[in-house]
């Protein structure tokens, strides 16, 4: 008898309700639509085949072969709440301007110093902000290749205290990110896509 004495077969069971997942009975790892590598588990089917995509001329996707080889992730800050608090002087005093977090290695490679303006571009659009050179983001080795990652807090846009003072380039993070949606949770793929970085 196996350890799972409550089951007649004596072993554990995996419960996968039929039809709960769009791509099959079991969860599976797929690479994002824009990934620097092919899926190491099954390179023949690297991306999720049933992922939902918008189909307008603006919805294009790039690969490292097109020169977009840096992974970009987006996030929020504790000091701001989405796009509202850029109008509140207290929050703006805490974090006054948009910025892009880049590793020291990437900064050295591109000749960027902290506070310099950088232009981040994906195949869909561009984003201009000051660079925050930090030790907290490190160069990674992915599939044997040196890979850089950058991070962009999303909180700035067209109107706000910094925007109205002319301190920002009035570019949007959402211009960079792909409108690709997970078929199960409908979470958009804003945490991993490909960009290139240059000094603005």
């Amino acid at each position, binding site marked *: 008898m196996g350890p799972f004495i409550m089951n007649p077969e004596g072993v554990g069971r995996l419960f996968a309700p039929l039809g709960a997942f769009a791509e099959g009975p079991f969860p599976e790892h797929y690479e994002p639509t824009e990934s620097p590598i092919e899926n190491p588990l099954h390179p023949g089917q690297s991306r999720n085949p049933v992922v939902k995509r918008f189909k307008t001329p603006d919805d294009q996707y790039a690969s490292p072969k097109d020169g977009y080889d840096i992974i970009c992730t987006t996030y929020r800050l*504790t*000091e701001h709440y989405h796009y509202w608090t850029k109008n509140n*002087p*207290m929050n703006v*005093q*805490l*974090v*006054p*301007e948009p*910025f892009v977090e880049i590793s020291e290695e990437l900064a050295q490679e591109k000749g960027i110093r*902290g*506070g310099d303006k950088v232009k981040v571009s994906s195949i869909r659009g561009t984003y201009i902000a*000051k*660079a*925050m*050179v*930090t*030790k*907290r983001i490190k160069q990674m080795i992915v599939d044997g290749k040196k890979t850089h990652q950058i991070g962009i807090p999303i909180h700035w846009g067209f109107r706000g205290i910094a925007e109205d003072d002319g301190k920002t380039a009035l570019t949007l993070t959402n211009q960079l990110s792909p409108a690709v949606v997970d078929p199960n949770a409908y979470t958009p793929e804003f945490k991993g896509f490909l960009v290139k970085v240059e000094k603005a």
Partner: protein
Amino acid sequence: MSQATLRIQKISGHAGSVPGEDTQRESQVCKLVDTTTCIGCKACEVACMEWNDLPFGETVFDNSYQTMPETRWNYWNLILFNEHVREDGSLMWLMRKNQCMHCAEPGCLEACPADGAIVQYSNGIVDFQQDHCIGCGYCITGCPFDIPKLNPKTKRVHKCTLCTDRVSEGLEPACIKSCPTGCLHFGTKEDMKYLAEHRAKQLKDHSGYVNAGVYDPPGVGGTGVIYVLHDATKPELYGGLPKNPSIPLSVKLWKQPMKWIGNILIIGGIVGTFVHYLRYGPKIVPEDSAKGDS
């Protein structure tokens, strides 16, 4: 008549014990900042500004999450962010809430020449009284933590008050109330020291921080704000927290011996002049030199 501040110790014709009898009242208050559980959310910065009604100021992006390089006359509470690479190559993002330390032997108070501009309350809070401040800025020289800041317009110096208005009513300071992680504690000095030592021991025994310890520097007689640090042997890593802070020698010399030597010299000069007058009389200008001038 309110008797809220008076405590009963004997009651006539009363059977049983007296409520509150023999209560020990430890009056020294203390703020405990556990840097190991700070997440740098800046809630304490906002609470400080809101409660003390401080005006908003301009800030610029400075390649850091830190709100501004150092505290200002109208910004008393600032979290300092430092990226520290350890010897094994791993990274620590150190965050320390920086504000007035409320020293038991305050360098600012020692250096201040204005009567009543800086006071220390019996609960340990060091408070600036701007009405009596003459704007000389000597407190800035006297502070080993570089905390007091001059308002250039009004020529008055300001700093954290430890929310005297709240503490005197039995409340905790605004920053403590706002902390979401429990990194900030407030209570009696005795209790906070116990809590801090307990936490430092926990860090040593269970989290591998062998140098964890409490920062309560004896050079200024202990402080009304104490820190738990991952590495108490290197407080400088946390945005230049001095290892052995003390009142600057110049302030000590100036306020103690130099003051008396100066006084003796002044009185000596007056006495000497008087003795000279008695011995030699007034100075008489020779007549021929007066003629030569005309």
